[in-house]
């Protein structure tokens, strides 16, 4: 701090303590920034670069092809099948899991005996890895498995259905599995939000003579609107990226007859399979990411514009 004029020209001359704090600030962020910088930051730039190239994974050759990969998307029948599967998966799974988790949360939130035990049980699927879950479900739905046995015993079937190898059933089994395994996560989100619901609102409604079902529709549902948007968003993002369950179910092939081929699985197959088309796979992954981000922004905007509750 030599001269007054100099100090005034440089508005802030940092003290020793401040400099030490800066150093600590950067030092503490460095490991995180290295990891995230490489595996998210650089990776995003890299994937964009890849999408303009033809990549040969075996020779390590990159050839610039301009927009060719993007154009190819429009004429790719497989991509259309995968998109169709992914969308029908999302369209079925998202509403069902949202409604079921809302109902379960509302019931759990009521003043009922043993709700902690129920909560503990309901949470179990969330803890289990997708590979263990998928294997359990493949077992349950196998030709000689419990589901077929039950249907035969109850007289609905003569012989077992081959759920796993029948193109008209395979994706449905994955839907059931996905709904079953993700409900607890959303139930917990709803429960957290329900705990903040002022109890007075219910009592007032009860005095006005509203029954429990009426109260559910008139108070609980509107109150939970913001969290519902969030649940829907998470659920849409999750279903559009569905990979593990379809991969394990079909052992990476997307079969039977491409019925479980999701976009993420097709990306994997193009990149690492015999097609050796990493650049094109990168393009497809980017397009899916853009779709996901558009959906996210739209629903956030929608929620912001009418968040009266």
């Amino acid at each position: 701090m030599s001269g007054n004029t100099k100090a005034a020209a440089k508005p802030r001359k940092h003290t020793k303590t401040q400099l030490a704090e800066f150093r600590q600030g950067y030092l503490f962020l460095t490991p995180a920034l290295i990891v995230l910088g490489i595996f998210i930051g650089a990776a995003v730039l890299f994937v964009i670069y890849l999408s303009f190239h033809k990549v040969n994974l075996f020779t390590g050759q990159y050839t610039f092809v301009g927009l060719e990969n993007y154009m190819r998307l429009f004429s790719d029948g497989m991509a259309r099948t995968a998109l169709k599967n992914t969308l029908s998966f999302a369209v079925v799974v998202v509403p069902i899991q949202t409604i079921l988790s809302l109902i379960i949360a509302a019931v759990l939130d009521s003043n009922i005996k043993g709700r902690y035990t129920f909560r503990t049980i309901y949470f179990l699927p969330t803890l289990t890895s997708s590979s263990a879950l998928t294997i359990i479900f493949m077992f349950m739905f196998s030709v000689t498995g419990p589901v077929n046995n039950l249907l035969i015993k109850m007289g609905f079937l003569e012989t077992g259905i081959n759920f796993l190898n029948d193109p008209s059933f395979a994706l449905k089994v994955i839907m059931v599995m996905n709904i079953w395994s993700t409900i607890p996560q959303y139930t917990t989100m709803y429960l957290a939000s329900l705990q903040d619901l002022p109890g007075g609102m219910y009592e007032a409604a009860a005095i006005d003579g509203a029954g429990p079902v009426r109260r559910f529709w008139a108070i609980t549902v509107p109150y939970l609107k913001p969290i519902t948007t969030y649940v829907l968003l998470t659920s849409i993002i999750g279903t559009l990226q569905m990979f593990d369950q379809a991969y394990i179910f079909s052992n990476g092939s997307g079969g039977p007859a491409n019925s479980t081929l999701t976009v993420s699985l097709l990306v994997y197959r193009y990149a690492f399979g015999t097609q050796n088309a990493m650049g094109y796979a990168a393009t497809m992954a980017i397009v899916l990411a853009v779709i996901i981000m558009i959906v996210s922004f739209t629903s956030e905007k929608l929620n912001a514009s009418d968040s009266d509750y």
Partner: protein
Amino acid sequence: MKAKLTPGRVALYVILVGAAFFTLYPFLWMVSASFKPLKEIVGGNMSLISPNMSLENYQYIFGRSSLFTRWFFNSLFVSVIGTILNVFINTMAGYSLSRLSFPGRDKIHHLLLMLMMVPGQVLLIPNYLILQNLGMLDSFTALIFPSAANIANIFLMRQFFMNFPKDVEEAASIDGLGRYARFFRISMPLARPTIATQAIFVFMGFWNNFTAPMLYIKSETKYTLTLGLQSFQSQNAGTMWNQVMAAACISVLPIIVIYLIFNRFFLVGVRMDGEK
């Protein structure tokens, strides 16, 4: 409010018990099948208990002819190291973003918010190539390094330190503790509950991860449990359901134990980053 048994309440219980049944049933089947001989599993016997139950399947998977024990310890190693790294890296970053002021802090905060929105699946291909160039493919480093930091958890810790009274630390500085000692000896221990929440979900993430090992690991001896389970299931033409179910049981067990012990942390720390 005294609870009376009205038709409405009965309906509530029916919903609750029904949902609990559907949730538990697949698990009960898994446990039951893991003790049964294969013949009985595929034979269409519906009962969960059978006189032929034995520990044979477990003896087989932990036996010499299978790599299962190895996979178990591979998973344990990757999950423990990954969790320790995450706890330190995320907590330090969260502390830095909330407690320390330095030029560019808000820019870094915004950058992280942006990076958090990138859907995970778009990163698989570039990360594979990056790891290949770093010479890390087919190693545990490939499983740990890319996931050694987590933005959602950095924000979780940031939130914690923002709400945490500063005077405890100030008192410690009067006692002559330096700024680094203050963080590691005072602030971090006080953040224990939030760190526990973070650690549990990070551990679970590593333990249950399937995509990363599937892409990055080639040698069977380096498989993790999730990958091993899948290979168990797909290698033999006729699946040995009895052994697969025993393996699945063991793979789920550690997480269930952690869950039962740390139940309260689970209900607070619902993951908010949108991944399963």
